[in-house]
């Protein structure tokens, strides 16, 4: 199977998209960006291939006559089980590293109670994991770092004792270990983990007929064995210069976002991308070719990272901010122009008795206001308008944006794809198809 890969190495997240001839997206993968770019890319790509194989698996099962199981439910369960498996693999490694860390000389005095606490924490996390990955459960994040971290911190604060094993110490161990875990390429592939995942689903679902089980297993083996042949890859994004690609295989993220948005919505004229550290306003023509753009510079205020800071400040996940803000109908004006100061302002306002929801709504509005000014600078908002990047997942931001666009530019069709965060990677994959460079990815 001949495939094209687009990789978007963003400041916060790294995205990969696998595309088949004829512009069909087969798989998408995402992971948090981290200190090792190669690892981040490799993981995003591996995730995209997992997704690809799931797609193929889905197709294969669909083509099977005589299956009696409910395919959608089954696949959902399977995917959840697969994710759980991945999580457990990583958790196991994290536990190993942490406990190793705890044995280092500097913790000698507390090593015994420390190891005890760590063991307790990790077995507790492992115990909670199946529930975290249950179908329909709300996760704070998709990334291991946050998922494990959140639970870890909560347990740490419960188990810490100021005089024996202080909280700060436990936090420090986690901070140290997670870097190591993140920068190690664990084998989390479809090929290696699908068997365990299937086993768990089969075990949980006793109603499954033997025949179905066999068919499923056969398809899984087939998909596992399928050769995925990458013809060409193109990289883009904030960190693109550091991608292990030759120059011809690198495209500016502005062009990629433009093309990606055009692919998703063919009538797109204006694109707004709000990522972690940059915001871009892009105008494209009928072919998805960029005609003008503006982006922020040298200052990260008003970008997705603002939300990250605030989420940390409130001890919430970024996903939770939007829904909270939506509970407010009154937005507080946020004055800070600095990401870091916004945290301080939030604290101050909370102390002054303002409601968290109102402050959050004000903060979302502030971010969108900045974007509005970039949009204006790039040439305004034409029909149709497509909102991309991670912040497009945030309903409060979307809501503020819709209001301001309507007020200032009138009615516009506003497109937001659930895959908006992949727009840059989609554009890159399209470029990979357009150019005929050989597959020179290492």
């Amino acid at each position, binding site marked *: 199977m001949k495939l094209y890969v687009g990789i978007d190495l963003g400041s916060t997240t790294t995205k990969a998209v696998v595309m088949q001839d004829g512009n069909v997206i087969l798989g998408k993968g995402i992971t948090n960006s981290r200190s090792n770019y190669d690892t981040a890319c490799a993981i995003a790509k591996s995730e995209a291939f997992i997704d690809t194989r799931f797609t193929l698996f889905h197709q294969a099962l669909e083509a099977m006559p005589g299956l009696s199981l409910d395919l959608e439910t089954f696949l959902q369960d399977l995917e959840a089980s697969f994710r759980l498996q991945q999580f457990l693999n990583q958790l196991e490694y994290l536990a190993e590293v942490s406990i190793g860390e705890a044995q280092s000389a500097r913790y000698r005095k507390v090593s015994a109670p420390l190891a005890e606490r760590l063991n307790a924490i990790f077995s507790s996390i492992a115990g909670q994991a199946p529930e975290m990955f249950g179908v329909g459960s709300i996760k704070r994040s998709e990334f291991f770092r946050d998922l494990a971290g959140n639970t870890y911190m909560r347990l740490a604060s419960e188990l810490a004792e100021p005089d024996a094993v202080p909280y700060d110490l436990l936090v420090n161990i986690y901070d140290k270990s997670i870097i190591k875990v993140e920068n190690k390429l664990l084998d989390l592939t479809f090929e290696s983990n699908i068997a365990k995942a299937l086993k768990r689903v089969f075990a949980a679902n006793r109603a499954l007929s033997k025949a179905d089980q066999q068919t499923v297993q056969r398809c899984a083996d087939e998909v596992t064995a399928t050769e995925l042949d990458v013809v060409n890859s193109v990289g883009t994004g904030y960190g693109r210069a550091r991608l292990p690609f030759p120059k011809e295989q690198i495209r500016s993220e502005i062009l990629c976002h433009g093309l990606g948005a055009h692919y998703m919505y063919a009538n797109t004229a204006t694109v707004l991308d709000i990522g972690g550290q940059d915001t871009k306003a892009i105008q494209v023509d009928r072919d998805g070719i960029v005609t*003008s753009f503006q982006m922020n510079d040298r200052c990260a205020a008003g970008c997705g990272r603002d939300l990250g800071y605030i989420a940390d400040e409130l001890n919430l996940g970024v996903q939770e901010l939007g829904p909270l803000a939506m509970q407010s109908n009154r937005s507080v004006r946020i004055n800070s122009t600095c990401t870091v100061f916004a945290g301080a302002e939030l604290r101050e306002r909370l102390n002054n008795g303002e409601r968290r929801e109102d402050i959050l709504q004000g903060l979302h509005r502030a971010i969108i206001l900045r974007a509005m000014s970039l949009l204006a600078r790039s040439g305004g908002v034409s029909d149709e308008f497509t909102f991309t990047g991670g912040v497009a997942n945030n309903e409060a931001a979307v809501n503020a944006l819709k209001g301001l666009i309507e007020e200032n530019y009138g009615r516009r069709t506003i497109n937001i794809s659930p895959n908006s965060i992949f727009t840059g990677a989609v554009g890159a994959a399209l470029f990979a198809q357009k150019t005929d460079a050989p597959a020179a990815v290492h």
Partner: protein
Amino acid sequence: MTQAPATDAVQKERSMILQKEMIADHYKQLEHVAETGRKVVYTFVPGNLNELIRCFDNLLPVHPEINALQNGMRKRTGKFILDAEKQGHSEDVCTYVKADIGMLRAGNIGPAGTKLPNPDLLLLSYTGCFTFMKWFELLREEYKAPVAMLHTPYQGDGTISDHMRNYMVKQLREEVIPKLEQISGQKFDIDKLREMLARSREAENDLVAVLESAKHRPSPIDAYFGGVYYIGPIFSAFRGTAGAVEYYRALREEVEARVAAGKGPITPDGELKEEKYRLVVEGPPNWTSFREFWKMFYDEGAVVVASSYSKVGGLYDQGFRHDPEHPLETLADYCFGCYTNLNLPSRVALLSKYVQEFHADAFLINSIKSCNSFSAGQLLILREVEERTGIAGGFIESDLVDPRYFSGANIKNRLESYFQMIMQKSKGAA
């Protein structure tokens, strides 16, 4: 702008050598004013009255802006600016001023490495920019030198009216000339001024021919990065001198030869082989990383065919010539016509005209943090020019001489994206 490219790899043309000598000689004269008893007049580039100064033969002009930019190219300004800020100058204001004040505090050693003489007169003709006025107020405090003020009214309506011109001529007669006479101890001789003006006109003709040559494909010159060298003599201490006439004649011949040979412009890395993009650029360049900045263009095959910066000291290509028949009026008209004294609609019209006449496929603004005179309104200029020419414009930001505001990686990122966009567009259209 008055310094020739000094890369060994590039063969020195005659014009480059002439310019170099002219400048070296000027600094030498400045170095020796104590012995020769000559008097020094500080003045600015846009709207400078070089012929008027030079008709008093014991007066020598000094241009603080040129010192600042030359110091910028020599990477001395970063420290000067910090020093000035330490003295209470704001981070927000024009860095030319701060670079000048910083140099003064460091002993007034000029870019040539020799001490610059203090001014005997500050000739404040502040065409197209209010900061010039503040600048000499500041220098007046520093040097306690007298100031001759020439207020050039702005072309707010896009035209020059008689009452504007009369005002200028009166100021020349009643304020500027008397002060020049007083400082020099010589009587003003209008015939001498006429002679100077006639020579100016000759050089101006040749300069225009050089600038116009960029209409050829490939363009034999880069009208921005190369342009800043070409305008050096005529915008500064040499307009009206025989040296300038000779320089521009030589330059014109060289450029015409390049046209005949179908050659592209010379860059610090040798001759440009392939002209991929033809640009019109608005705004001054950055001086502290001038080479690095230029390289970002020629590496991509981008040639600037016309620029507004090469018109800050006079819009000769639009027909203005110094006129010996009306010496004072012509000086007034010259001042009115400098690029930043044009109102925004005229600037938009001029830039659009450049895009069309020079067959440009790209229009780029380098917005300078320091310079409100240029920068305030550029985003509208961008949009208007885009609309009128149908070309997608590009926008980058930097500063003249403050290295803190030149972010190479950032500008490169933007330029790359911009060129990719132009390329994609021309391919898409094909």
